[in-house]
């Protein structure tokens, strides 16, 4: 696949820190040549385990070609003056170097099988994909801009939840993004969430599960409370496959589980159907504006 222009412009794509050539599949233990793994969309050739996919690779996978990034310069300060084992500013600086990103999400516009769409993709490599003020702002800007352009919105999540280092500013991003999603919904435009590994806490408890259609990627860990918290609270053995995409499907929590290789087609299919000719003349449904 030729490198799209937008990706070539991003000169900061990280280089591997070491000369690691192999990765071990955490599921089946297979040693996989990293080049092979990348060529296979980071899916284990032996057992089909889906490794986590960096945001830029995800965009390359889903977008037809060009990707118009918005709000690309937004970055995190340090609203609380936070420090735990390491100062927050040092953590985010390390994350920038490690991920080649300024924050845990990239937002912008592209076409997916020729359907113009807003596409936001989270990256677990930046602070565990947690949502602080910048992630909340970028999601909100994306949803608002989708409303302005009258295009569907796709949000691909990968997140440990609200970002603790920003305290309540982090938690309030749930309300901010939800408010944008609520307004967007009044326009009758589709919002599709794609939950990838892992999606938990504040992100699953906001736009993760606010999609009109919720797609989960194969094998993804998805839930509200982390396994450790549940373990500590109830002290019971957790059932087999607990909080996997397949477990959620079985319990009626997601519309479908899709393998990475099929994701673009599945997504385009949903977008095409929801954007198709609507019954009735009104272009908008249930407008809340006076």
């Amino acid at each position: 696949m030729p490198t799209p222009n937008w990706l070539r412009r991003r000169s900061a794509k990280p280089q591997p820190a070491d000369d690691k050539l192999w990765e071990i599949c955490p599921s089946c233990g297979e040693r996989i040549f990293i080049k092979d793994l990348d060529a296979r969309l980071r899916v284990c050739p032996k057992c089909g385990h889906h490794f986590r996919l960096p945001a830029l690779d995800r965009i390359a996978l889903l977008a037809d070609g060009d990707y118009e990034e918005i709000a690309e310069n937004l970055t995190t300060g340090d609203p609380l003056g936070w420090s735990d084992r390491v100062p927050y500013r040092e953590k985010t600086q390390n994350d920038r170097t490690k991920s080649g990103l300024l924050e845990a999400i990239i937002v912008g516009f592209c076409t997916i099988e020729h359907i113009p769409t807003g596409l936001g993709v989270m990256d677990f490599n930046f602070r565990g994909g947690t949502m602080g003020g910048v992630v909340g702002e970028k999601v909100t800007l994306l949803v608002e801009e989708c409303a302005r352009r009258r295009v569907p919105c796709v949000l691909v999540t990968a997140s440990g939840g609200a970002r603790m280092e920003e305290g309540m500013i982090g938690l309030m991003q749930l309300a901010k993004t939800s408010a944008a999603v609520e307004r967007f919904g009044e326009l009758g435009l589709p919002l599709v969430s794609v939950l990838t590994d892992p999606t938990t806490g504040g992100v699953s408890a906001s736009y993760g599960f606010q999609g009109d259609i919720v797609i989960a990627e194969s094998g993804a860990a998805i839930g509200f409370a982390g396994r450790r918290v549940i373990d500590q609270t109830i002290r019971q053995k957790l059932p087999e496959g607990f909080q996997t995409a397949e477990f959620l499907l079985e319990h009626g929590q997601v519309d479908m589980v899709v393998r990475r290789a099929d994701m673009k087609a599945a997504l385009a299919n949903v977008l095409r159907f929801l954007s198709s000719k609507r019954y009735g003349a009104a272009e908008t449904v249930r407008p809340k504006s006076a």
Partner: protein
Amino acid sequence: MNVIVELEKPLLELEAKIEGLKKLNETQRVDFSAEIRALNEKAVSLEAEIFGSLTPWQRVHLARHPRRPLAMDYIAKLDGFVELHGDRTYRDDPALVAGFAYLAGVPVFVLAQQKGRDTKENLYRSFGMAHPEGYRKAARIMRLAEKFGKPLLTFVDTPGAYPGIGAEERGQSEAIATNIKLMTGLRVPIVVNIVGEGGSGGALAIGVGDQILMLQHAIYSVASPEAASSILWRDSGKAEEAAQRLRLTSEDLFEFGIVDEVIQEPMGGAHRDAAKIVDVVLAADARALASLLRLSPQELLDRRYEKYRKIGAHEEMVLDRAAR
């Protein structure tokens, strides 16, 4: 062990002594009024000494004080409260109380997280941690509030949403996500009271509104100090430091614009004069509601959107430079 319960022991002993003397004074011929006056003065200065400058960690414990007024104590002082039960799908969740009542003559729907007073009640109420069906009952009430044009009054007091197998199976995330979204677009006034513990997403699921009131010694946090300690320090012993850093006090949140009004508590905390604080809170609610009722639904929604839209923090940077 609650650190405040320990801290206030000498004060309670002193107060018991004063009460004893007062009784003696009434029944005996000897006049103890001078002693009582002296002890009263001592009690006042002891109270100031103990509660004058509490650390965030002590305030976490004050918010969790076993005698702190609970949501139902406030609801009991509303007129004509009628409880409404069930999510119509699975079961009734006692951790989340719903119903309708009148506040200063205004009909309101009410939602609240209710903790227990003792172990038995706490088991019944899941320590105020709601399951998805609790949040779905709340969603049902929110839709009723909109349908019948009644304001919504909520009382937040929860360590967080219940973490458990059943809660996950039944979609805890979805239930919370739905409520938060629903509240951002609800076409009626919403007044929120943070009365005890505001624990993360589980609190926010009945906590989005037009006027957010917070008791002086309530706390509201992205995660409990205990959780933050084990996640960020990988050490469960750093909760006190986490409490210090999380900025979870009413003053902090007022400064951030997350809370609109802080309600002062009696010296030593709400439990020192529960009847009074209940009256003060409900009076503040009535005032907040009266001014919100003057706004049109569209004005309310625009105002609410702006309120949350501006909560954030970011800077700008150019990527190439940042990564080097």
